[in-house]
């Protein structure tokens, strides 16, 4: 089959995590937390020969040093993969370095402020309830397939001004890029091509029929010289919004519901004390941060005393940083009302997630509406929870039963 020609050989199982780590290994996918503890105990920065050479900072401090050092660490590649082909499909500003980064990011910030999110919130609440209506009478559901996946898909479609029903296409492309694409270049390029074609159609349509959605906002934007953005820039940013805005939040909502399904004390407390939601959301973001980013080493330097050499990638694990006991007391415990919480789930420094306010709003609303309608639920002992592989971690199957007794 022609498709399989681009698939890299299967990765051999890991036996030495400290010197040969692999974030696509099934053990990591299932439960990465003890692995990170092992790596952190070994060194603030570990290295693997896999992925053509890759470092991983294991402490909050090391993650922070790399995040702030855009001089030695480039964002031009933001996914650690088996291959490093020429860079073709950029997605500014996430793949931009200074000085191009700031103007590209400034364009995207105003539509994502907390005030802008407040306007979107009623639609998201309605989306959540429409979804719950579809399965609540069944007494059970796969919360990942029926609920957590669709909230961000429909919310971002609504913002972009494209049909919410096209959500299944987005999910297919994202799977091709973020999961299959780590090991299969054809899957990645195919998904990027289809996505680009889809958005070109929507851009063309808006040339004669301007709208007030996010696609039109990007089309109306002008750079510092008063020029409109190149189509490639607009397409890159749209790719970014879709890729970065969907399975990340899907994962965050899913991990939150997974935690609440298996932790009745926290669930009951949130039902009784809804005012705790803002603290709870931050703590769930810390404990189950979905997003691991990447950098490429451009120049030799040291991070937390460890030498780091060009030619290598960096697996920039915000999730591991957020479990560092040197930064967070009881780092491995979910403290649902944790008050001091400088977690890095949305990154640190100039690449702070542009959609962080959207993600927080979606998480808050999705958990609130679920708890209002389904205050009692638990993991279905007859089902199996499965987790996504690679760069974004969250439950992809989350079978739960509703009600106190079943």
């Amino acid at each position, binding site marked *: 089959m022609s498709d399989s020609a681009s698939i890299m050989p299967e990765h051999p199982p890991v036996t030495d995590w400290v010197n040969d780590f692999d974030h696509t290994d099934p053990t990591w996918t299932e439960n990465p937390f003890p692995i990170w503890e092992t790596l952190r105990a070994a060194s603030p920065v570990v290295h693997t020969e896999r992925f053509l050479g890759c470092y991983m900072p294991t402490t909050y401090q090391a993650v922070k040093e790399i995040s702030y050092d855009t001089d030695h660490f480039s964002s031009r590649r933001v996914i650690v993969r088996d291959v490093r082909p020429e860079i073709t499909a950029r997605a500014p500003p996430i793949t931009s370095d200074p000085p191009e980064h700031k103007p590209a990011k400034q364009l995207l910030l*105003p539509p*994502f*402020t*907390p*005030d802008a999110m407040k306007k979107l919130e009623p639609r998201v609440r309605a989306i959540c309830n429409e979804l719950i209506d579809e399965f609540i009478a069944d007494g059970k559901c796969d919360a990942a397939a029926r609920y957590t996946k669709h909230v961000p898909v429909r919310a971002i479609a609504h913002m972009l001004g494209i049909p919410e029903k096209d959500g299944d296409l987005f999910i297919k492309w994202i799977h091709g890029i973020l999961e299959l694409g780590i090991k299969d270049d054809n899957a990645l390029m195919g998904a990027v091509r289809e996505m680009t074609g889809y958005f070109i159609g929507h851009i063309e349509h808006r040339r004669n029929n301007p709208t007030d959605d996010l696609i039109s906002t990007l089309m109306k934007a002008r750079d510092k010289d008063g020029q409109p953005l190149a189509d490639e820039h607009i397409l890159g940013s749209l790719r970014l919004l879709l890729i970065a805005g969907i399975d990340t939040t899907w994962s965050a909502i899913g991990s939150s519901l997974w935690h609440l399904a298996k932790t009745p004390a926290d669930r009951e407390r949130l039902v009784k004390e809804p005012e705790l939601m*803002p603290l709870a959301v931050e703590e769930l973001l810390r404990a189950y941060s979905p997003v691991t980013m990447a950098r490429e080493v451009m120049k030799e330097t040291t991070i937390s005393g460890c030498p780091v050499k060009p030619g290598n990638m960096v697996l920039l694990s915000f999730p591991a940083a957020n479990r560092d006991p040197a930064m967070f007391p009881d780092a491995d415990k979910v403290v649902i009302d944790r008050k001091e919480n*400088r977690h890095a789930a*949305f990154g*640190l420094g100039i690449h702070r997630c542009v959609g*962080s306010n959207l993600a927080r709003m979606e998480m808050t609303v999705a958990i609130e509406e679920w708890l209002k309608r389904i205050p009692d639920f638990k993991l279905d002992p007859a089902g199996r929870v499965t987790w996504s592989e690679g760069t974004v971690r969250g439950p992809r199957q989350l079978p739960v039963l509703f009600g106190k007794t079943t």
Partner: protein
Amino acid sequence: MSRHVRDKVARDNVRHNRGNVAMAGKLKIHVDQDKCQGHARCKSLAPELFDLDEFGNAHEVGDGSVPAGLEEKAYLAQSNCPEIAIEVTEE
């Protein structure tokens, strides 16, 4: 209050320089514009003390004086800023 809890409170007070919470109205906050990246944690925790610009980046309300009764919120915002961009000083 147990000895353990008392020690913890004392430690927190030292750490956050809030031994004199009783001296209301004497705190001042400032957001370092070079450090703020728009996480908006301060605005969420202490909306009375922080405002956001059109890009979502934060700045202190007015001259940064913390009205009486909001001292705890000022320290809470400070201790949740991922970029360590918030300064709280006693006048």
